[in-house]
């Protein structure tokens, strides 16, 4: 497929849907169609709207149309020894930039480098009134107007159809190594808390139920010094391990049961919920493979102040995302109204109420 600008066509489609009052189901590569509540509505295909529109390596800025394959962007960056520091998972062949931003998906480096939303500098969107709007830009510092660009991250397409996104990119680390330590989950949680207070070049932490994995990134000298301090065994297949983890191809994820994503305060002790656990982000992200009910999971994490998402499988017509307190829900509904008053953009994908 070649690069093309389908902005006008997409805008016409949104306007037509608006006129007909027929909801749209926005789709890029379809690699994340498993995620969120069950999509409904007429298909709005964004995948054809693709191409990197601007890349200035020395300014650390890249802009691309929403349908641009993530793999293409990563390849382009690799050629300049740069990267998307939020290390987005693809979850499939055709993953696009737009889908990644709409889901705010971020990988193992997230706890240290930031999430997708932290790297978004600007965007162009079609709102639910069929208007093409531009927010932010291609500069690092910009406080003109409300930060609509970051608001689009994780909104699951319910506030606007992403047309183009500008991102801050970063240099790839000079050196990256990983070590593994034969320690228990409890011991790992304790160790991670101690490391968090030290200026160590840690860029990923995981405990997969068997052992603890640590990735270190930076100059060769800094990484070596940190590795000596941390101990453990060098992991030969450094990149492969973290890529498999990111893409959920690690053996842990091989299950037919529901997969839950728990976002919690990092030091939260192991929770008394039946199932298989995998820890990332220093304990702030926990994957749970379990048949336990949504209610039980959410009430178990309530004291820890986090939230639980039904990530894969299970009942997608229920509350996939954690229900919000009434006050917050009202504000979110009003925001949805402000962008999409007729509710034509991905209705119900995020919350049943909108």
């Amino acid at each position, binding site marked *: 497929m070649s690069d093309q600008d389908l902005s006008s066509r997409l805008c016409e489609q949104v306007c037509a849907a608006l006129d007909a009052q027929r909801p749209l189901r926005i789709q890029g590569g379809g690699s994340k169609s498993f995620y969120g509540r069950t999509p409904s509505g007429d298909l709005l295909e964004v995948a054809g709207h693709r191409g990197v529109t601007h890349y200035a390596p*020395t300014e650390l800025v890249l802009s691309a149309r929403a349908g641009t394959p993530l793999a293409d962007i990563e390849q382009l960056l690799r050629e300049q020894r740069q990267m998307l520091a939020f290390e987005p998972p693809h979850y499939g062949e055709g993953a696009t930039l737009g889908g990644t931003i709409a889901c705010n998906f971020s990988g193992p480096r997230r706890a240290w480098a930031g999430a997708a939303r932290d790297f978004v500098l600007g965007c162009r969107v079609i709102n639910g009134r069929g*208007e093409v709007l531009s927010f932010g830009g291609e500069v690092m510092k910009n406080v003109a107007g*409300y930060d609509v660009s*970051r*608001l689009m991250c994780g909104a699951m397409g319910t506030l606007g159809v992403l047309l183009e996104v500008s991102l801050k990119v970063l*240099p790839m*680390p000079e050196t990256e190594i990983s070590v593994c330590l034969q320690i228990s989950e409890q011991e790992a949680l304790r160790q991670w808390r101690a490391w968090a207070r030290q200026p160590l*070049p840690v860029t990923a932490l995981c405990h997969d139920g068997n052992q603890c994995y640590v990735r270190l990134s*930076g*100059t060769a000298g800094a990484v070596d010094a940190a590795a000596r301090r941390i101990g453990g065994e060098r992991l030969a297949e450094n990149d492969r391990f973290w890529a498999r983890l990111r893409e959920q191809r690690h053996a842990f994820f091989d299950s037919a049961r529901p997969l839950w994503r728990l976002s919690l305060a990092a030091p939260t002790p192991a929770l008394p919920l039946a199932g298989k656990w995998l820890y990332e982000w220093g304990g702030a992200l926990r994957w749970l493979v379990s048949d336990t009910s949504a209610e039980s999971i959410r009430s178990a994490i309530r004291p820890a102040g986090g939230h639980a998402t039904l990530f894969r499988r299970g009942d997608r017509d229920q509350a996939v995302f954690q229900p919000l307190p009434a006050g917050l829900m009202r504000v979110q509904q009003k925001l949805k109204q402000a962008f999409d008053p007729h509710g034509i953009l991905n209705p119900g994908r995020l919350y049943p109420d909108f």
Partner: protein
Amino acid sequence: MHNPDVPASFDSIDKPALVRALRQLLPAESVLDRREDLRPYECDGLSAYRQLPLVTVLPETVEQVQAIVRLCHQRRVPVVARGAGTGLSGGALPHQQGVLLSLAKFSAILSIDTEQCLARVQPGVRNLAISQAVAPHGLYYAPDPSSQIACTIGGNVAENSGGVHCLKYGLTVHNIQALKIVTIEGELLSIGGGGLDAPGYDLLALLTGSEGMLGVIVEVTVKLLPLPERAQVLLAAFDDVARAAEAVGNIIAAGIIPAGLEMMDRPAIQAAEDFVHAGYPRDAAAILLCEVDGSNEEVSAHVFQVRRILKDSGATEVRTARDAAEREAFWKGRKAAFPAVGRISPDYYCMDGTIPRRHLPQVLREISQLSQQYGLAVANVFHAGDGNLHPLILYDANKPGELERTEAFGGRILELCVRVGGTITGEHGVGVEKINQMCAQFGSAELAQFHAIKAAFDTDGLLNPGKAVPSLHRCAELGAMHVHRGELPFPELERF
């Protein structure tokens, strides 16, 4: 000074009745309504704009804040929240018919969590006080706006404040985890949460930088970082501004993200040198200050690399600070740049545009042409790493017509920033100052979308009316930050 875009469309308010009602909610000394007591609140750091509020309130508890805004909501009284009032865009300028809600009494650090590296603080806590409080734990709060000894975290969130270290450590939005806000209806909302993300829309991002338009911030949870093992600074001189700009690109192309990367042009160098004798090369066309931090090994490696890159990029001289004292001296000149310019000119006007860095030589060339055209000198200081340019226009307000010429010149600079793909404000905010330039930055559809967002939180438009987003029919005039005879509104603060 022209009038800011403040709508006066609120019903006339019965001041004595309002004051009586507020005194039911707060101790008498926390409700100020006499002219002389209101005077300290008439402006923020942008002192060219002054307006007495109807009344100033100084609540101490969240419940009091809720009761105050509820009352204002019922009576349709505008509410303007204020932290330390150090902002440079008039974001805390009072409304003539409104309540000025000072959060100065919210000055407690509620908890420091060294396990999660978080601090839960009230909005009136000073930026630097956070870093000082957590320093014994080997931690600090990264965003460091130049006013950090006085500015408060609530204001930092409202403005999405930056600082010298943004390129590497991000802005306020990247360094907070949760907020508590009070809506105009008086409802307390918790935004963000215990983990690194929260369900639903990213209200944390939307609230950050919203300039007090969407809610009153009553609590902030900030992220803390481990103090770097070591920091080192290099100073490089160039005989050509374009080469200095290229050197910045070359450092980044080598895969190094410096903790700070600052540029000054010749007028700024000379003013700073005459003022603080930092030892800058007076004849250089531009100097770069590059600070790298991290572990010992990393800093050593980066200093070595950066030195080589600077020399290869045509620096006429490269110095590395030998010790902490010299490192401080290198920074001293840069940090003194604003007051230094204030010494050589009766007045100056500080701009705050951001541009894609590749356009720097062109932008500086055009600013220089405009400078000749308007007959006004300019000194440039530049957060070179992230493209945030602060041109300082030198003028004399006592000379007839010079103020108007300065404003026109400033407007042309901001238009130039927008034309090369940049923005009208990198870090000072829109406030009342750049309300009209918002029309150069955005079209009417975007502005209408902003108004719809505002209405989702505040249907009656009571929170900070007339700021940040212009009404669609007001898009002509230009605003300015004016400093008379070098007297900054906060002369004790470093401004850079």
